């Protein structure tokens, strides 16, 4: 298991990527990351929300309380233009990084 909260750069990247598709609330993000990583990457409440608040403060995402019929209100996070910029940048550097690692350790993409 990778405790992603310690690697904040990559955690930001993960969350921003997930929010690029649609606004989500915290627990949803948590579950998505866990399921998509096959349980390898896990977030807890105490690591996720500080991360979200910081990203919100930096203007990458925006949280909003939304009430849906028959449900209590929940806070949904939406990616901002600045956030999209960041994720694009990170995506590039991440790909570079992965390629570099691959070359070093001898993995090649067919």
């Amino acid at each position, binding site marked *: 298991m990778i405790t992603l909260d310690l690697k904040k750069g990559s955690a930001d990247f993960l969350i921003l990527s997930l929010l690029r598709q649609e606004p989500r609330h915290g627990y949803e993000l948590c579950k998505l990351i866990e399921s998509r990583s096959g349980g390898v990457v896990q977030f*807890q409440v*105490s690591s996720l929300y*500080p991360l979200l*608040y910081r990203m919100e403060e930096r203007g990458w995402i925006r949280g909003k309380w939304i009430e849906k019929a028959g449900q209590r209100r929940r806070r949904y996070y939406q990616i901002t233009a600045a956030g999209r910029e960041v994720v694009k940048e990170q995506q590039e550097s991440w790909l570079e990084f992965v390629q570099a690692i691959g070359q070093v350790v001898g993995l090649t993409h067919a």
Partner: protein
Amino acid sequence: MPEWRRDILARLAPLRLAPEREHEIAEEMAQHLEDRFADLRASGASEAEAGRVVREELERAPLAAALECTEHPDTRDAAPPPGSRTDGSSLAALWRDVRYGARSLRRVPGFTAVATITLALGIGATTAMFSVLDAVLLRPLPFAQPEQLVRVFNTYGTAGNLQSLSVADFLALRADTRVFSSVASFRIPDNGLSYVTGDRAERVYGAIVSADFFRTLGLRPLLGRTFQAGDDAAGAPPTAVLSFAFWRKRLGGDPQIVGKSINIQGLPTTVIGVMPSTVWYPRSDRAELWMNESFATPPRRGPFGWAVLARVRPDVAAAQQKAVLAQIAEGVRARFPGGPDHWTFEPQSMSQRFSGPLRPVLLVLMGAVVVVLLIACVNVTNLMLARATGREQEIAVRTALGASRSALVRQLFVEGTLLAVLGGALGLFVAIWGVRALTAMAPDSLFVLRDFKTALDARVLALAAVATMGSVMIFALAPAILGASTRATGAARGSTDTPHRRRIRSSLVVAEFALSLVLLVGAGLLIRSLAKLRAVDTGVRGDGVVTASIALPAIHYSKVPDVNAFHDRLLADLRSRPELERVSTSVGLPPDVFGSSSDFFVSSHPPADGEFSPIVDVLAVDGDYFAALGIPLLSGRIFDARDNPDAPSTVMISEALARKYFPGSNPVGERLNVGGTGDGNAYSIVGVVGNVRYDGVAQDPSEAIYFPFVQGGLGATPSFSVIVRTRAGAGEVGRLVREAVHQIDPELAVANVRTVQELVEESVASNRFRTTLLTVFALIALALAAVGIYGVMAYAVGQRSREIGIRLALGARAAAIYRLILREGLIVAGVGVVIGLAASLALTRVVTKLLYGVSATDAATFVGVPLILLAIAALACILPARRAARVDPSVTMRGD
């Protein structure tokens, strides 16, 4: 389902967020946990199991610390937390550390204030006291080669019993040049000299010195010259050297003053020189001018009233000096047989002479100051240690975020430096103020403090800087290393306080209590001693008695009938005032003005050859003196109209003298020879009165001989005090006396209007001074120790709130919690008190010299002070104990 909101709110509390924000976060996170819990239940977990997992996840990271950076507006601008690897240039990093440090200090105003004040007191007190110590003990005397200068005394061989010299002694010492290259004498007329301008006579204070005085000291004049051989020859015209102050204040700084004549004591006196403002010897309050005196070959060895100073030849060994002085003493004895035959000359170095009387006081005070500084440093160390432990979460998170250990140490160090700079700056103000207060508070008897210009100088400032930086090293680095070395993973689970560190903090508090106890015991002993001194029976009933002093200038009052005319008219005037019940005069006053002293013997038992007559206090008084001061008549009669200037000379004696020289018999009617042999010096005793202390409250009651003032004999001087028993206040009496004096002689000044209580207070002024100082230091130490134990106990309670919660949940009563906390605090304080008691017992001999009427192991002090200290410790523990007893079990048991 568990109630998560409360849990989260409890964790957010340290952030002190705005309530809306706090609730928003709590709501969001609680929803998350509820969803998680529901999911776990849905997947088959039991309620307890699901609860446990969710709680674990909540506790995985310290929430408050993680939210710190985003939730505090003032930290928003500091993009990366200090110590992270993204730091730019080292200067920028330092600046960031400083700003971050300032912010974190601002966030804990209580801690910052206590630490700053603690440091300021420690540094300020040390610097102020060191400045004074430096002036008195360390700075060289303002003379050329001061180490060669000695004062020479007569001694009977018992150490410390130093007497002044006679003219015969001085001339013999001056004549022998084997040991001393130069010898000079001086004396200080108690009542000053009259300086007459026009028809106005003023009292000025100066010294009567021999011609070699300034040459021996190696002092040069500002204008003109100093005395030279021949100026003091018999019949030489009078000359004077003026002080800078006299020249400037009284003569307008006349640059042509040298060679001009001024009127001193009714004689035209030629000014030969002016000294620079730095010259104040022999006493700053008695150094307006210096006059010469001539020395004729004396007819006998005594009287003894001259101070002698000498410059020792650099190549003379101590043994040789001693041998030569013994030879000179032998020579004087041979020339004046019948004098004291077992006296020898004793040299005492000038520096010892100056600092000697102050040395024990200053060393005790310096010790006290060092102790206060130590306690201050210990206290701040403890505060920092407690804070570092409390900040482990923060440190752990920063470590997790990539801060290196060195960066963390640097950050803590910067914080410590900020505190030290704050404390040091405030301490400097305390020091400046302290020096002023010390010199202003110093009584006249500690005139050395005034004579040396005590001020903060560069060296003392440097000392303050060293003290400041020293305490930074002590209190900042220790916790930085201890704090940063905790393993991030362990600490991240919640703050931990290792038993090891708890022990360190407890031992620091133990040390504080031990040190405070030593100081408090010292202060307690001095306070008891001062109380004893104040309670000493001076032999008079002083309440309702006011005194005032009058000095008649010799120019107008050189003859006894003139003095008597003034004296009698003044008494008659004052006695006509109905509000003044008893009016009298005396040249001496209790508790420490004895007028003069003289040798005497019982006429029927003249001293055998080689036997020396005893020396006693001699006072001239008016007969009403005894009634005015309530001194009882024990036998015979009081002076009255029979003891007039034309009648045979009479005396009264004190009980002490009567008991010693007339054991078992009534001395009334017997005769005493005072100041010489033969019938001309014989006086009949007419009465015996109760003992009075004239040599200071700490001395035994004086053996005294009283003379009738109007007979103008021994002890009568043209300066005397008026003593009034009255129901009127001192101000009113002063006004009436001034009025009466002015009517007789408008040029006369009335000085020193005092009640007898004030005279006693003045005589214990130096005792009071040192007692006040030590007490202030002891109280500072006590306050610091109280803060120290409070800090440790408050922190321990915070750490153990879970344990306390469990105890309360298991049914412990609040009283039991109080007992638990108090017991812990009192054990720490108690150990300190026991160690302090042992240290005090070992150190008491240091203060023995300063005590009067109290043993250095005074039981009351050694029992009372520890009790006070323990009571203070208990008080300091009550606040944390109360907080502990109010712990809510349901909250704390769930907490970390």
